[in-house]
């Protein structure tokens, strides 16, 4: 029985090849960011010099990307969670239409949404030149993910009866929403927030169009360094992304799993 479900050797070999294709560039990039001279390879010795140079030139982009992603999550919580509730409870045709429209920014390429934003608000200098412009773009793009994830949690039948019970006990809407409903869908909110954070940190398609020289995020800085710098700098910068962003994502994921375990229904 065990043997019958084992994959043929050919498939195993193919899997190994695909794994090599996926992992080799990551390893190569890590190595290239730490050697003195890329064309000489490891022989030229290891150094943290490139990392230092990247930190000096682009260190600010790391902080801004994290702050933007955090603000994007916050904005999504404030706008998206109540909206998800309204859409889950409403039976009106307008609600369905809005739900449909809301998902369009995901289907439409980021470049088009960015062009649209520039056409509409590009002349408002104060707004155009601030990080708020990028934040707005990120929020439009991530809102459907939050609304979808949390909305399907709100739709559960147990939750309707829970809500009804709280109402019959005389709880006001605010009390019911914050005291009963939100805690009940917390795992979905955490999952949605994590998705939003990840999407915002890596977003480039919109961001490249929306950024100005004074408002650069990590992916924008990456593109900039790839275009104009040495391969060692590009690699070191990629390494910064790997060692700063990935642990944050993993940490958040661990928190998410923890909440799901202690909160799961």
């Amino acid at each position, binding site marked *: 029985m065990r043997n019958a479900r084992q*994959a043929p050797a050919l498939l195993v070999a193919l899997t190994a090849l695909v794994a090599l294709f996926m992992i080799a560039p990551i390893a190569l990039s890590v190595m290239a960011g730490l050697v003195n001279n890329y064309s000489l390879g490891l022989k030229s010795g290891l150094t943290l010099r490139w990392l230092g140079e990247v930190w000096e030139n682009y260190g600010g982009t790391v902080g801004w990307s994290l702050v933007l992603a955090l603000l994007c999550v916050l904005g999504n919580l*404030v706008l998206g969670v109540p909206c998800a509730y309204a859409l889950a409870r409403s039976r009106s045709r307008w609600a369905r239409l809005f739900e449909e429209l809301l998902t369009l920014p995901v289907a439409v390429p980021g*470049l*088009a949404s960015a*062009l649209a934003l520039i056409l509409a608000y590009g002349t408002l200098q104060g707004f155009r030149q601030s990080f708020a412009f990028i934040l707005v773009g990120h*929020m*439009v793009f991530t809102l459907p993910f939050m609304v979808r994830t949390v909305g399907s949690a709100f739709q559960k039948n147990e939750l309707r009866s829970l809500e009804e019970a709280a109402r019959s006990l005389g709880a006001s809407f605010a009390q019911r929403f914050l005291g009963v409903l939100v805690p009940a869908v917390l795992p979905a909110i955490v999952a949605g927030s994590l998705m939003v954070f990840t999407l915002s940190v890596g977003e480039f398609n919109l961001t490249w169009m929306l950024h100005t020289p004074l408002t650069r995020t990590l992916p924008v800085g990456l593109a900039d360094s790839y*275009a104009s710098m040495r391969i060692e700098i590009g690699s070191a910068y990629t390494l910064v992304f790997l060692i700063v962003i990935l642990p944050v994502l993993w940490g958040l994921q661990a928190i998410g799993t923890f909440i799901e375990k202690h909160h799961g229904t």
Partner: protein
Amino acid sequence: MGHGGSAPSRPVLLACAAPAVAFFAAFWLLPVALLLALPAAKGWATYFAVLTHARYLQSLLQTLGLSLAVTLATLVLGALVGITLARQRFHGRALLLSLLTLPLSFPGVIVGFFMILLGGRQGLVADLSEALGAGRTTFAYGLTGLFLAYLYFSLPRAIATYTAAAGSMDAQLEEAARSLGASRWRVARDVWVPELAATTLACGAIVFATAMGAFGTAFTLSAKFEVLPITIYNEFTNYANFALAASLSITLGLITWLALWVSRRVSGTTAF
């Protein structure tokens, strides 16, 4: 609140939705409406520039061809690897799976850079081919580089999706088919393919849509092989040809939206 049932009152629902509706209307619906109207200012023909100008048509066809090829390759490789990983049990399997899905959180520009490391002038392949006496082979900036880069950012999604889908497949059906003497190919054709059809459609639609709109990767490879997002970007920034950039964006948006819409209609699953 004077009505029965568990539905909250209308004003409450409206108040809950209003902030999101206002935000979305101001920062997406209105801007996109302006974008849709822009080409008209230059004459209605501007909307069809992608079909009437040979250069734009070529860019569109190249993008379509590349995206379709990448989708096909991703689905085949993703399915085979996903099925293998779902059934093979070995040490470090969980680690391998998480490494293979890691690139899902990489920006497209990083993937483009990876292709430069592999196939650029100083790339790994150039070193290897030189060591083998075949001269320095480079492929990063052409069609091959773009194809491999698109494959790189598409595969993690397909592998994760197929591993999950194959893991929850009904093993009894396959045992039954085998015990009736079905060959490996027949099992694959009659059991796997139908069971994985919905997954394939949904995953294929996202991969295709992502490939059509991918900007960061193509931008990093500043490709000799021009794709539509790069054409749009050039029209907008280099030539300040806003109406044309808008018209091309509309075309691109319509194609990707349609792909996702069809897959949702047919398979009934959410495409993202």
